[in-house]
């Protein structure tokens, strides 16, 4: 029956990224917000499709000009990375303009950008959506003045890992030795790179009640212990919204029959040396605010604790029968150290049955950070 279904018939096959022609262009990343610890502009260049490392545009002069004429310089700190000397105050209603002068003597600039005020987030919330069978993390916001209209969110997620089979032994130089420090609680960080934007243009109120940021399956390992989402909200200009919506559209293509045909996306930075030169990227200068939400599987009724990140297979080591001596650490080491295993010997006695698991299942510090983030609450 499935053969009758068009949706099942269509299929996507990965292909190699092959470069067919190339255009070398300047890329400006200038997302300046007061929520960041330091203001940063990154200058890079396009690279051929399929190449590994981006090329940076170094040794340029980068500065932002406040409407009153104050100039904030962004000296280069790393190749292509330019950071402001100080975290100057971004003033709502004032305009700022980005200037770049490259080592080749080419200059670029943005138009003056007026800083919008960003309303407070009404709430960041999570709920279980039974129709889609997902844990939905969403943001709600509103602006009674109706001035904000276009929003962009940056999200950062953190989740706690608990080692499912804390290891008590480890192999050190072919010997089985007791494990002194076994991390049982770790933290993982992830910054999804999806473009989260929404507009309320055409709505009677500047209000967003449920903008979905993240959907997690109820058995997603993220929800095993505790999950937290930090949402940074920025009110952006209509032009910025248009730019980021085009970036989103071209970055998150599904390959359907009705995908909009792609083309070049014009940002707000232009070359003042060569009018026809295409410059990629966008200059946003924003004031934002943020909110954090915690969530875990216990908030979803009817679901058991999700599994650990890594599949943990508990295996038993049986000493060979022709060797009545149950076990010598050296023998085991010879057999198993190659697979990097950590041993758990129940009751601490090594001549008992040996149960072993993957290293990642015995000690979460092998895959995550053990430091408790300061925002983590119990």
């Amino acid at each position, binding site marked *: 029956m499935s053969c009758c279904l068009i949706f099942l018939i269509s299929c996507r096959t990965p292909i190699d990224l092959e470069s067919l022609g190339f255009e070398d262009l300047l890329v400006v990343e200038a997302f300046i917000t007061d929520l960041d610890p330091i203001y940063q502009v990154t200058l890079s260049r396009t690279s051929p499709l399929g190449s590994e490392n981006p090329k940076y545009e170094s040794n340029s002069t980068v500065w932002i000009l406040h409407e009153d004429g104050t100039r904030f310089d962004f000296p280069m700190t790393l190749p292509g990375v330019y950071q402001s000397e100080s975290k100057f105050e971004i003033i709502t209603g004032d305009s700022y303009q980005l200037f770049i002068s490259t080592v080749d003597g080419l200059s670029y600039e943005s138009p003056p950008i007026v800083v919008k005020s960003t309303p407070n987030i009404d709430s960041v919330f999570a709920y279980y959506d039974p129709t889609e069978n997902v844990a939905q993390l969403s943001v709600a916001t509103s602006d009674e003045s109706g001035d904000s209209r276009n929003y962009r969110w940056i999200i950062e997620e953190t989740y706690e890992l608990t080692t499912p089979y804390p290891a008590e032994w480890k192999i050190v130089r072919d010997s089985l030795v007791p494990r002194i420090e076994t991390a049982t609680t770790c933290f993982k960080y992830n910054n999804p790179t999806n473009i989260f934007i929404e507009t309320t243009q055409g709505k009677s109120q500047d209000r967003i009640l449920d903008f979905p940021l993240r959907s997690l399956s109820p058995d997603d390992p993220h929800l095993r212990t505790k999950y937290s989402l930090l949402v940074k909200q920025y009110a952006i200009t209509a032009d910025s919204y248009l730019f980021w919506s085009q970036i989103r559209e071209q970055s998150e293509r599904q390959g359907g029959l009705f995908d909009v045909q792609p*083309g070049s996306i014009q940002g707000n930075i232009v070359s003042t040396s060569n009018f026809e030169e295409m410059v990629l990227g966008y200059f946003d200068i924003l004031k934002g605010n943020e909110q954090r939400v915690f969530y875990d599987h216990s908030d979803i009724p009817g679901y058991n604790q999700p599994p650990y990140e890594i599949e943990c297979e508990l295996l038993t080591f049986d000493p060979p029968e022709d060797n009545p001596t149950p076990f010598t650490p050296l023998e085991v080491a010879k057999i198993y150290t190659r697979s990097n295993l950590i041993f758990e010997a129940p009751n601490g006695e090594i001549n008992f049955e040996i149960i072993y698991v993957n290293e990642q299942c015995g000690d979460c510090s092998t895959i995550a950070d053990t430091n408790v983030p300061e925002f983590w609450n119990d």
Partner: protein
Amino acid sequence: MKIIKNKFVFIVFLGFHIQICSGQEINPSFRFSTDTTSIESAIEIIENQSEYHFMYLSSWIDGKYTILDRDYPTIESFLDHLIINTQINYFIKENVIYLTENFHIETELTPGLFGDEEYGNIDISNDDGGHIFSRDLQTASGILDENKTAVQFIGNRKEADWNENSFLMGEVTDKKTGEPLPGVTVQIKDSFKGVTTDFNGNYKLAIPTGLNNLLFSFIGMAPLEKNVMIYSDGNLNVALEEQAYELEVVVIESDRQKNITSTQTGLISLESKTIEFLPMVMGEPDLIKAALTLPGVQTLGEGSGGFNVRGGKVDQNLVLLDGAPIYNTSHFFGFFSVINPSSTDKMDLYKSSIPAQFGGRLSSVMDIHVKNADTEKLKISGGIGPITGKINAEIPIIKNKMSVLASGRSSYSNWVLKRVDDESFSNSQASFYDVVTKLSYQINEKNRLSITGYHSHDDFKLSSDSLIAMNNLLGSVIWKTNISNKWDARIQGSFSQYDFDMNYDRIPEDAFLFSFAVREQQGSAAIGFFPNEKHTFDMGVDVKRFELSPGNLAPGGDESLQVPQNLERERGIESAVYISDDWEISEKISSKVGLRYSGFAMIGAAETNLYAEGIPKSIATQTGTESFSRGESVQNYHGPEWRFTLRYATTASSSIKMAYDRSRQYIHMLSNTASISPTDTWKLSGKHVKPQIGDQFSLGYYKNLKNGDIEISIEGFYKRMSNVLDYKTGASLLLNENIETSILQGDGKSYGVEFLLKKKAGKLNGWLSYTFARSLLQFDSTFPVEQVNGGNWFPTNYDKPHNLNITTYYKFNRRFSISSNFVYNTGRPITYPLAQYDLAGSERIYYSDRNQFRIRDYFRVDLGLNFKGNHKIQKIVDSSFSFSVYNLLGRDNPFSVFFTAEEGEIKGYELAVFANAIPTITYNFEF
């Protein structure tokens, strides 16, 4: 040897098949070695063993067998056995045995026919001069073709003026249904003089007085030849029989010599019943998909709606169903066409030299004829396939006068989707149906009325996104009348509406309902004038009124925060007058000269945006708006549309034709997706959108072999288009109040050579078509923002230079046949990334010039097996099974290549729509 000598044909003048028995004895030593033998070999044996010679056409006896199981004392007894169960008669003159094929001329004549002409017997006593009679015979032996058996006499011999033409008129009907047959070619054989019957099946032909050999031919009907002796004006009614052996054969353009004799170029005709045997995706017969196997007709890829003709865009095709335009031709995203072939008779697709009566689109006219229901007998047929079920009823209301066709088709794909064990599918829905009904009423001999209505509906919802519903609703009333022998007329009124809406309600606060609609009403009057056999004039007026609701956004419920938004309606009137003359300049040369003069007015009420002159239109350069009151003209456009064709007959079976035509288009589709999407909207010409204008030159050579069984044609074309619409990158075409700032108008050109080889008869038939063609666009401006690809020519996304199709059909016997498709074409152009870069934590893609890369070539083989139930005449239900495999080799032909960022990294994918072989079984029945 196998040719009957002409001079003996007059024997059947008497209207009977005379058998002259010579009584000579056959060689008594002769015996047949087997009981069953072919007639042909039996004849050979007789010829070898006796003095007799046979005269016949081999086609009469091909493949026929006889049982000869004893000694035959006389030649007559032998012949009587030889021809048993055949349609052959014989007569013997001296040592020559003439075989003739049986004709049933007598039974076809209507009683009134005997009123003003003599038939079947020459009244020698009335003859006022025996010399004329002998002269008749002389003429007869001079012109008559070999396979003729009877001569009919028309008019009064006393009135005969041998140096003048006489008028022959009459009606051509379908022998089976008694219905008049429009469009039958009535031709004086081997002379290129001919006419076609009008809507009422009537013809009038100026014909040289004397003996003539007439050929009546019509698609799907057995060609009928008549020898007529014309003395003066008179009537000849004929009835054509369905071409029995072609019923189960793939036939296109079966009017044997029409491709040679007509002035028409670039015409594709497809009969519905012939395409039923082609292996189609999901077993769904489809006229448009079948047309794709013929030269010059292409599509973007599998599953994309619409079709492209000679490099034209999808919206440049005028698709008419009994005269009413169909705006959305696709069901189910484009996998199927909205026309259910079992409700239609045939389709004519004009790729060039579009008749002057049609206008309004640049590239082609697809004229689809809904079936006229049988007026004698109730017929019900239907079919069950994996996607749809369909049923068709032909209901006689007044015998031989009025009948109704009702036909419906519906998918049960929703049912399928619901049963898929995957939540995203079971939350989806996709279904469609279409219904068509037609009333045909032969009011009297001179008047005929038909009323057609059509509705199609689609809805789909993928996962829990918006629900999209689409509707076509259209209908037409056509009245045709025969004013006199020289004049006829057609009055037509039609309407068509296409609308879609999107309904989103997952989050109540965001719930909305978006709707779009385009409506068209059309009225036309056409007059045909046939002053003599050299000229056929067609003239008329055609008025269309358009009304568009470009977008209407409404909140979807009380909780919704959606602000209603209504884009202003657009209204326009397109009117045209036309005249054309199909003029036979000489025996060899004929020409069709036509002029259509069309005008378009966008009318108020309207508010038009004004922009600063000389700089690109944008919201920033808008200077204000201009208001127009209701009925006021906002903008006018008008211009001539020339239609010109010249045909030169190089021989009786080959010709050269050239054509030039111009078309103007005032309504345009806006689309920025690769495939034509069901939610693409339309836009009228107005202040900021100029009409599209297209010019096409074409030149073709046409050759028929084997009496039209094999057709070969080569056509070359060059086409220029101006004011073709495209969009700026990133343009939003929905609900855009300043839509003109997102639209570009530029030039298009396409050129190519199309080759077609068709075999129309025999056990193996089908066609091979090869096209080389390019289609290019150019959007140039002094402003980079209004350029595409730097203002240079670039290929359209359906530009596929090489195109090869081989469609074959092999009939093993009456119950079993095999059909196959072989399709190859160059991969289509896509826009390919030029570079990658990092932005906002992820790799991003930089695209530049459009359509500079091609995906892999397309190659597909399909196979179909057709089984028919047995042919017992008394059986109540006639049933058949078709088993087909689409994409037999399971080749994963790419539809597109696309790139996406996953976890911050760019990944490339090839998307194939039908990546596997798709077997389907369909069941059809008729009773």
